């Protein structure tokens, strides 16, 4: 029989009907739905044994103790260590995402250490009289810092440079404070060790004198909204009331307010005055209030091996003659305070200086250096963390690696020591041994939360527990000497330009560091408005209008040191005449302490 179109149709119809009576169509529909649960692109978290490992956070000078939850050895989340004498188990947003930094998309992976070494050798040979080889160490006080100092002592005309120490290296004893006056210092927002501050918070009254309502101002016991740039005048008036009238003029407070505040500071002591950038006036006020030995103390040195004593002195960049540095090493492997490139650049010799930056990303000085050598990043790196500003006792803790650093990473201290023709050795352990030899203090181990006198611990056990998460806390009595000279001599502050050229005053809303944060921080500044993204500025709508950028999302920030593109956010909580800026490498390059600026249309 011959087939007709109709037969074929019927056949297909039968097929369809029959198929309905088989599992096939239903199974396919189900599978398709399940496929939508695990279609390509959805990662599967690795499984494995879950363990807790301990280390210390190297992302800021606080160096909080960290408990890492690890799956098959890989940290998947970080938390504080409860009961820790220094950080009290209180983490911060940046620290909580630290374990993701090694996977940052902008991470620096390649470098040319051999070429860099060769170039350095050549330049050092060429280094004439009056020229110098310098190391700029952003986080001074570490064992590697000592290596740099020794290396610079070893080479002819070597110079060791570090950022000016806050409070000249003195320590704050918050536990003693009853009244704290903060002139724009972010006391509750990243100053010192968060856990320590919050623990002491209940015992002192916090008065925040700041033009805009920062996170600290919002939670201070009293907020004095003063005019931008009038902090110094206020401090002065509090020291001698005769200037109160003029201070009232400058700050916009009433004379009575100022005098009452002055009385309070003296009446309900011990008092402490903190300022965003170590105002000389603030230091002087501290001296007048008799803070020294009470809330401001000289911290005993962390012991170092005697062999290290032959070391180059620590100097600030400003103290070096201009165009005198031929070879400059910059170690930013551990985030520290930032020095504007403009300030560094003018110290370099004119004819091709060699600048070698050690960094884990190209965001910092790497943008300006001839050679940028990739380093390990927390939590890969091995480094000790100097005592925090709010720790009156000397401390020693190690940021031990939780993850193995990738191959082809450079160790800055080894590199620099080699360039100086010396051997860095195992500086970290040497210093640990030196501390152990001193026999002072106690060791707090994180895993079991026990404190043990150092006397009862063997050297190797000490070293071992330091690497497994522990901190050594000194018990030596703090010096009660008289007001030290270094606090009276104010460190350099860049000359302020006339306010006419640059009408706006820059205040930093976020921690002032150039180092990258975890991609996950985008939850805070992109998925919400809680924090500002790097290189953005908030300003009053009127200010924006006056600057001719009303309604614009981007603009150009201009200071005496240069200009850079920024994002702008209109915000009525920022007083007119002020810029509330989130630090980013570009912004930091053109902003020093007390910078005046202007914004112009992009």
């Amino acid at each position: 029989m011959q087939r007709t179109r109709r037969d074929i149709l019927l056949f297909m119809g039968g097929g369809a009907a029959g198929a309905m009576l088989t599992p096939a169509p239903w199974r396919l529909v189900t599978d398709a739905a399940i496929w939508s649960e695990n279609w390509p692109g959805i990662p599967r978290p690795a499984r494995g044994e879950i363990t807790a490992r301990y280390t210390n956070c190297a992302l800021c000078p606080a160096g909080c103790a960290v408990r890492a939850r690890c799956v098959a050895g890989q940290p998947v989340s970080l938390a504080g260590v409860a009961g820790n004498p220094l950080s009290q188990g209180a983490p911060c947003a940046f620290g909580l995402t630290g374990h993701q930094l090694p996977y940052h998309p902008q991470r620096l992976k390649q470098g040319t250490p051999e070429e860099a070494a060769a170039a350095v050798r050549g330049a050092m040979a060429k280094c004439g009289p009056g020229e110098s080889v310098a190391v700029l160490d952003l986080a001074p006080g570490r064992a590697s810092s000592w290596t740099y100092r020794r290396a610079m002592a070893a080479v002819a005309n070597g110079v060791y440079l570090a950022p000016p120490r806050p409070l000249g290296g003195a320590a704050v004893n918050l536990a003693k404070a009853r009244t704290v006056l903060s002139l724009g210092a972010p006391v509750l927002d990243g100053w010192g060790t968060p856990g320590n501050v919050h623990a002491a918070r209940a015992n002192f009254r916090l008065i925040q004198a700041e033009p805009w309502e920062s996170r600290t101002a919002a939670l201070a016991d009293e907020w004095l909204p003063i005019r931008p740039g009038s902090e110094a005048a206020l401090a002065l008036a509090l020291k001698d009331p005769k200037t109160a009238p003029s201070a009232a003029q400058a700050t916009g407070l009433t004379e009575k307010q100022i005098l009452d505040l002055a009385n309070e500071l003296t009446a309900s002591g011990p008092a402490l005055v903190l300022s965003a950038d170590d105002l000389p006036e603030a230091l002087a006020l501290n001296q007048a209030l008799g803070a020294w030995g009470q809330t401001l103390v000289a911290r005993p040195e962390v012991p170092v091996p005697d062999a290290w004593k032959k070391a180059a002195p620590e100097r600030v960049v400003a103290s070096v003659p201009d165009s005198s540095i031929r070879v400059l090493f910059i170690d930013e492997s551990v985030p520290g305070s930032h020095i504007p490139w403009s300030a560094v650049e003018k110290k370099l010799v004119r004819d091709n200086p060699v600048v070698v930056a050690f960094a884990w990303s190209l965001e910092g000085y790497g943008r300006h250096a001839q050679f940028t050598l990739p380093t390990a990043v927390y939590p890969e790196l091995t480094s000790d963390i100097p005592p925090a500003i709010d720790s009156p006792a000397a401390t020693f803790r190690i940021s031990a690696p939780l993850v193995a650093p990738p191959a082809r990473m450079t160790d800055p201290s080894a590199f620099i020591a080699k360039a100086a023709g010396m051997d860095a050795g195992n500086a970290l352990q040497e210093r640990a041994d030196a501390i152990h030899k001193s026999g002072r203090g106690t060791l707090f181990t994180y895993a079991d939360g026990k404190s043990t006198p150092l006397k009862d611990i063997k050297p190797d056990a000490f070293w071992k527990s330091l690497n497994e998460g522990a901190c050594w806390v000194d018990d030596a009595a703090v010096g009660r000497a008289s007001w030290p000279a270094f606090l009276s001599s104010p460190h350099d502050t860049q000359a302020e330009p006339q306010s006419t050229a640059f009408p706006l005053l820059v205040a930093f809303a976020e921690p002032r560091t150039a180092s990258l944060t975890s991609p996950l921080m985008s939850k805070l500044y992109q998925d919400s408005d809680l924090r500002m993204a790097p290189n953005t500025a908030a300003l009053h709508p009127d200010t924006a209008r006056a600057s001719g950028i009303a309604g614009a999302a981007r603009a150009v920030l201009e200071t005496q040191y240069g200009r850079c593109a920024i994002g702008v956010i209109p915000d009525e909580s920022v007083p007119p005449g002020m810029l509330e800026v989130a630090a980013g490498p570009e912004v930091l390059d053109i902003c020093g302490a007390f910078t005046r600026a202007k914004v112009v249309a992009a």
Partner: protein
Amino acid sequence: MIAPNSKSQPSRERQRAVSRYGMSIDLDRCTGCGACMVACAVENNVPPAHEGATARKGITWIRVFKVDNGEEGAARRSVFVPVLCQQCGEDTPCVHVCPQQAVEVDPATGIVGQMPERCLGCRYCMAACPYHARFFNWWDPQWPAGMEKTLNPDVAPRMRGVVEKCNFCHGRWHAAKERAAAAGKSEIEAGAYVPACVESCPTGAIRFGDLKDAASEPAVAAKDAHSFRLLEKLGTEPKIYYHSKRDWVRQVAAAPKPPNGKENARG
């Protein structure tokens, strides 16, 4: 259609509930540092913001808002308000509306659970939630290369096109239950289970516990005169109790006021 039956459903929850987990948030302690937000994202495998994401399209199971008293200059005061799923206990708005039972109030814990693998992505629950505590996966989840190594194995990553929200770090509840089981116990004792935001809060502003246990911090806070819950008049019985000694701060619980023309661009 069968009645939404506002009364019987939660009361059944009450009877069977072994515990009713709740939270108390002290607004006088919150510094707005954002630790809770990142800790939450880390714990629950929430990917970094897609470059196209905004404060309106982002996924923040807990989000801290900066709220001011509307005053100008010296009189201006601000407070930071962490907002997460309020874990409504009574006539839970999102549960009734879900067409395919992807949302349920867990009888054992009182936690409002969202099942991404069951979710159709119709977003009806988001329209129903007065606290805007539910979030849609507008993009495929993406982590920078290598960062997926840091994912938490106790929480399954979600796929594009589904709704997700805070579930009191339910993965931690599972883990706690398993630890208890290893010790031969079928129930977990207080303190063995704490969400990531609570653990990460540096000032201890966020406290967590079982509201059925009168000694737990939230249960105590619930009785405090200075405690309040968001939009209490809606009768959704949230299990998140806020606390502030400042009178104006407690006004954030109320309905919005008509606009005064001035909007804080920073939320």
